[in-house]
């Protein structure tokens, strides 16, 4: 049984990877990173960011709403202090890049050339920032322009993480493909508002991004829809908590999946998901991903 995935020449030993912001920089999980195909780092910005006011997380039935606001040490500290420690990681590394505009994305892509970095994931979908993030991702035209601009500056695997907030992710995916993306990640968190007992916003950033099992049916819908619209591989993401959830995303058309919220429930939860997925496939007698990708029959 082989679950190896090859995206634009980059081989992933298995199709389960950890989503940005839920697995640190991978080094925190060094001893079991090899159980995953890869990790997407915490979103990185050009300058350090202190993030949004607290509280930054709220829970509702079967979901979370977060408003971290991309707290991160910035590109320079990452390159100097963190990247060297990522050398020994036994899985693929994608750096999640969150610029405020095209020029910032380009500058970061130009600097993220280290051979340890296997690819970049452009964050055009964070709902918790006032500039960049979802504001860029809501315009397919901007998605194409930005992807194209970064494509010209990097030869690394280029993934674009799309939003489904008030924009058709299929249109955004086509735009990313036209700009030269090697794959698209579908979807990032959805807009959400949580109120406290007094009817006031609970989160310090006022609104947040909804994740977890509650968004899985919608995320599956988006993967199914996006796969029908583009030729590049789709990386499914949204509410994957166990092996069966992952299985569903492949059936909807994903070529790889990202696990996010499950890592907050138990640190390194993506590793459990990967094991469960493998066991499930063995039980079902599935020998390769091609047997299940797109099984749901949408689109193509």
């Amino acid at each position, binding site marked *: 049984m082989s679950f190896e995935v090859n995206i634009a020449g980059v081989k992933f030993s298995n199709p389960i990877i950890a989503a940005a*912001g*839920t*697995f*640190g*920089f991978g*080094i*925190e*999980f060094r001893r079991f990173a090899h159980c995953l195909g890869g990790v997407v780092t*915490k979103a990185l910005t050009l300058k350090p960011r*202190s*993030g949004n*006011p*607290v*509280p*930054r*997380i*709220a*829970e509702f*039935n*079967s*979901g*979370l709403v*977060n408003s*971290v606001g991309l*707290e991160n040490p910035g590109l320079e500290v990452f390159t100097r202090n963190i990247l060297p*420690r990522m050398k020994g990681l036994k899985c693929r590394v994608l750096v999640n890049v969150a610029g405020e505009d095209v020029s910032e994305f380009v500058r970061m892509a130009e600097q993220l050339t280290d051979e340890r970095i296997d690819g970049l994931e452009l964050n055009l979908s964070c709902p918790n920032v006032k500039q960049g993030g979802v504001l860029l991702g809501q315009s397919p035209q901007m998605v194409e322009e930005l992807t194209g601009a970064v494509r010209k500056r990097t030869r690394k695997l280029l993934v674009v993480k799309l939003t489904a907030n008030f924009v058709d992710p299929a249109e955004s995916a086509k735009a990313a493909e036209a700009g030269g993306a090697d794959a698209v990640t579908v979807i990032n968190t959805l807009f959400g508002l949580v109120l406290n007992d007094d009817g006031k916003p609970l989160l310090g950033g006022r609104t947040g991004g909804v994740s*977890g*099992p509650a968004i899985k049916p919608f995320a599956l819908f988006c993967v199914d829809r996006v796969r029908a619209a583009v030729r590049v591989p789709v990386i499914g993401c949204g509410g994957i908590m166990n092996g069966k959830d992952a299985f569903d995303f492949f059936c909807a058309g994903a070529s790889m999946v990202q696990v996010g*919220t499950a*890592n*907050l*429930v*138990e*640190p*390194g939860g993506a590793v459990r998901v990967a094991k469960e997925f493998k066991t499930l496939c063995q039980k079902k007698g599935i020998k390769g991903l091609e047997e299940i990708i797109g099984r749901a029959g949408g689109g193509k």
Partner: protein
Amino acid sequence: MAVVADSLIVRVAKTGWLSREIVSVWLEAPELAKRTKPGQFFGVKVREREDLLLRRPISVADVQGDLLRLVFRVVGKGTRALSRSRCNEEWDVLGPLGRPAPLVKNKDVIVCAGGVGAAPLLFLTRKLIAKNRVWILIGARTKQELILIPEFRQLGARVLVTTEDGCAGKKGLVTELLTGVVKDLAKPVIYACGPKMMLKGIIEIAGRVQVWGFIEERLGCGAGICYCCGIEKREGGYLRLCQEGPVVDLSRVVL
């Protein structure tokens, strides 16, 4: 950088209510009991409620032999479900999380507890009492919400009690007791756990006295990964409660 711990399944050895809202759960966890230090806490999964995703942060009130004593107040669905746990049930716990509280030596130590805030201070006091002179100031709204007083007394600390309605101890607030105690001491150290208002009041009274406060914030992963549990620093930016806290020098943070 955080080193991530695995979660463990441990057995509930004993449970009991300390007040109408506050529960005490003893877990049989020899290995964790050995490793846990005052100030640390555990992330407890609400196993029977799959719809409640996040672990509940619960502080360690005491460690005795192989047993860990966790004490928490019922504040919502998750803690309500946990409060119904019975003896021999299994809990899924992640920890010990957080940085241990710094332990001083040869000092006059004032421990200020508000309501359920007394819980983590019991374990701390157990460690401090041999090498320091310790005063315990415990307050609550009313007598029924005062917890762990016999345990504190057993440790041999000087225990002063206050309630807002005056039905036990002196009528008033912990901060009022503190004003009385702190003025007679040359260079005391304060440890405090309780509502934010209480901590704010303590800072005002403390002046230049060092205050270590136990901070409460909504927790995400508990492992330093998600950056959800920020504590705002005076100089700007945030500390992560699960890494640099929950016990922090109160002069460094914004309450």
